[in-house]
């Protein structure tokens, strides 16, 4: 059984796999490929046009010149190699008479969106093009943005059949050598593992499974990638994943985006300060409410103590329970608004925000003040940069809440210490999470 039959055996049952016999400059050939990747008719036209350019009069070596001119002759054709070419969307031409394969680049169909504005990160002043699913486009965007001869890309096929492509991008002269070395080593030793999602990629890179802070900083913007490369970080692109993954992700990535620097420097720092305040508000406020209401009311001024007492009259549950109750509803609203189609979103906001909020107060289930507290919490949970970071913050809030309910303000402070200690304990490839990375080799600092 020769190679062609083996390939046809393996892929033949796919409905979009085609075998097409035809004559190309009097040579009988067999075209193999997936019609979902290419437009077949145009590819065949192109093939004929290229073949016609080869002068058929000279008989000697006509076949080899023909093969040369239409594509790349596959040396030492193995079944696996050809299958992988086919799966990547190439058209493979088998010359029956000499049993040789030629790899032809067909008219491919566009299977990606065009470059568009980012979906998860809004840019107010700065470059708006965002990454798309197609990896080549993404690499192109980065090359265009970085415009540097030191930019290196390194491609790996991962997975049991080495089909899933990931690309490492770094600046040759700026990258932190240990970082690059360890990432390459990890990828090479785990090359057989699947990477269909970030959990699997994180397993490939050997990150701890149960960490509550992400080790990848994801971004849709080439501008952010450029800055990360400048700082000596390594960027990973995953095929069909419209985000660049920046390793390592640091604490500063929670508060700073490169786009801040498109504003005056005063506002850069003020907005970053605002984000820090937002994160602190989100983490502390629910716990503060519970501890002040049930454990340390003596810390309040008497007027506010009385106001809270008045607003809590007839509220049946202890403050921890009422806080958890409303927080749960808020988390549900969060989750639901991600799931819902865009057209139904506003309805949910209205029901959740206005109707539920009003009803829950007049039904005396929770106190007025708690509504304010939770509104502040919800709003501030979105000031942090990146949705992946806001998830961590949302989780930490509960640690503080529980500790506050147990120990009051003392527990709140202890919880902050625990969170700080946890962050300080994290590191990726030897770079501590709380490290502040300076831009390297930047002429204007």
């Amino acid at each position, binding site marked *: 059984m020769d190679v062609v039959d083996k390939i046809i055996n393996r892929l033949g049952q796919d409905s979009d796999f085609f075998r097409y016999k035809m004559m190309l400059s009097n040579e009988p050939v067999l075209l193999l490929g997936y019609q979902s990747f290419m437009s077949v008719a145009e590819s065949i036209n192109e093939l004929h046009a290229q073949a016609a350019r080869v002068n058929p009069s000279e008989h000697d070596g006509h076949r080899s010149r023909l093969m040369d001119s239409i594509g790349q002759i596959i040396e030492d054709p193995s079944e696996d190699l050809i299958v992988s070419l086919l799966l990547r969307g190439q058209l493979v031409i088998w010359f029956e008479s000499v049993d040789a394969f030629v790899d032809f680049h067909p008219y491919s169909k566009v299977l990606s969106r065009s470059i568009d504005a980012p979906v998860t990160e809004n840019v107010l002043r700065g470059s708006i093009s965002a990454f798309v699913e197609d990896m080549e486009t993404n690499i192109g965007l980065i090359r265009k943005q970085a415009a540097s001869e030191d930019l290196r890309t390194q491609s790996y096929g991962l997975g049991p059949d080495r089909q899933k492509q990931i690309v490492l991008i770094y600046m040759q002269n700026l990258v932190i050598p240990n970082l690059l070395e360890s990432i390459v080593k990890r990828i090479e030793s785990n090359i057989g593992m699947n990477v269909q999602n970030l959990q699997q990629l994180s397993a490939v890179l050997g990150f701890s499974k149960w960490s509550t802070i992400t080790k990848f900083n994801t971004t849709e913007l080439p501008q952010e990638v450029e800055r990360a490369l400048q700082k000596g970080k390594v960027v990973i692109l995953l095929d069909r994943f419209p985000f660049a993954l920046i390793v390592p992700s640091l604490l500063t990535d929670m508060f700073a985006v490169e786009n801040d620097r498109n504003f005056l420097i005063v506002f850069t720092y003020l907005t970053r300060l605002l984000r820090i305040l937002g994160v602190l508000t989100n983490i502390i406020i629910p716990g503060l409410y519970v501890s*002040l*209401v*049930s*454990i340390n*009311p*003596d810390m*309040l001024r*008497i*007027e506010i*103590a*009385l*106001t*809270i*007492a*008045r607003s*809590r*009259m007839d*509220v049946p549950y*202890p*403050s921890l329970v009422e806080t958890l109750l409303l927080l749960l509803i808020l988390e549900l609203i969060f989750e639901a608004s991600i799931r819902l189609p865009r057209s139904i979103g506003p309805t949910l906001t209205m029901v959740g925000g206005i109707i539920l909020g009003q009803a829950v107060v007049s039904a005396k289930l929770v106190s007025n003040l708690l509504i304010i507290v939770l509104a502040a919490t919800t709003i501030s949970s979105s000031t942090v940069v990146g949705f992946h970071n806001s998830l961590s913050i949302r989780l930490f809030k509960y640690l503080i809440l529980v500790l506050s*309910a*147990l*120990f*009051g303000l003392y527990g709140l402070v202890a919880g902050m210490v625990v969170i700080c200690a946890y962050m300080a304990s994290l590191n990726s490839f030897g770079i501590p999470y709380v490290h502040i990375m300076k831009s390297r080799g930047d002429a204007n600092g």
Partner: protein
Amino acid sequence: MSIIGLRVLPVIGITAILLTLTGCWDNKDINHRSLPIVMGISKLDDHYHIVLQIPEPSQQQGTEFRLVKASGATINEIVDRIGANMETQMDLLHLKVILIDKAYAESGLNDAISAFLRSHDISPKTMAVICDEPIDQFFDNIQQYSKNNGTLIQDFFRANAGWSPQVATSRIWELFRSIHSYTRDEAIPIIKSGKGTIVETRGSAIIRNGKMVGRMTPDETLMTNIFSGMDVKGKIEVMNSATVQIVNNRITNRSSIVDGRPLIKSKITLSVALLEKKGQPTQDEIKKELQLTLTERFNHVLTMMKEEEADILGLGQLFRNKLSRDELQKWRTNYLPNLKAEIHFEVFIENEGDLKMDA
């Protein structure tokens, strides 16, 4: 045991300890606590009589308050008894003012003050105030006047609310300190219920070793506040010529022992703003008048201190490094009456107001 077991078990253990040993189930929410803000104490024949003013949050606007009265042998016992009868938990942490009956203050406060400091329930920052009329009467009058303001007595003494520089401030920890210190006594404010205004200030009481031994007028209280370096913005009427407001005051003291007699030289620098004047006094006249008035007032306070042997200005503090501990012990009796004070007031008229001096 597996690695996971080694990691998970301590976490489970800590969580179990957290949940079982904290005692958090004893915490009561704020709406299940009574937060009295004023406590009135009087003593009759070895029996304390206590009135608590407890704000009551109500669904209507404002805060009403209720008065709870009880008598008994010790303060804590009475409070406990009141708490047992209330539908909420008694929580004295928000107590802001302790109102002491004058007769009780004259007989000595030592037991009550040490009881307050001994028990955790009351903040040492609570103000001590003397009431110039029977406690029950005071509270009854107050209740008539103010239905909706549960915090008015507290506001009267709060620096960022109704406090004025003619009113002495004294916390119970300061009273406690004065009881046990050789060289410092306290002045505490005296109030009674007023007509028109709800509370009326009646000067301050001189407390010596926990006993009320004399009283000062509001003007003299302002003097002591200036001397203790408080940032007072008080207004002083200069006899016959003007009224000024103190905008800044600074004091430097130097102390020495001369021939066994304590000598204190103080320089008090006052920046004042002119508010009102009578006739056409010159700046120098106003300054001189002011110096004279203040020196007179100060000397009067000093004379009173010497008579009562009560060091409300804390002058003895300045001699702590000059006298031995045994000598300090006799500060009030042997040294204070012989104190020689040279006080110099330096006055700057910083501001003539929006009009020229001779306008």
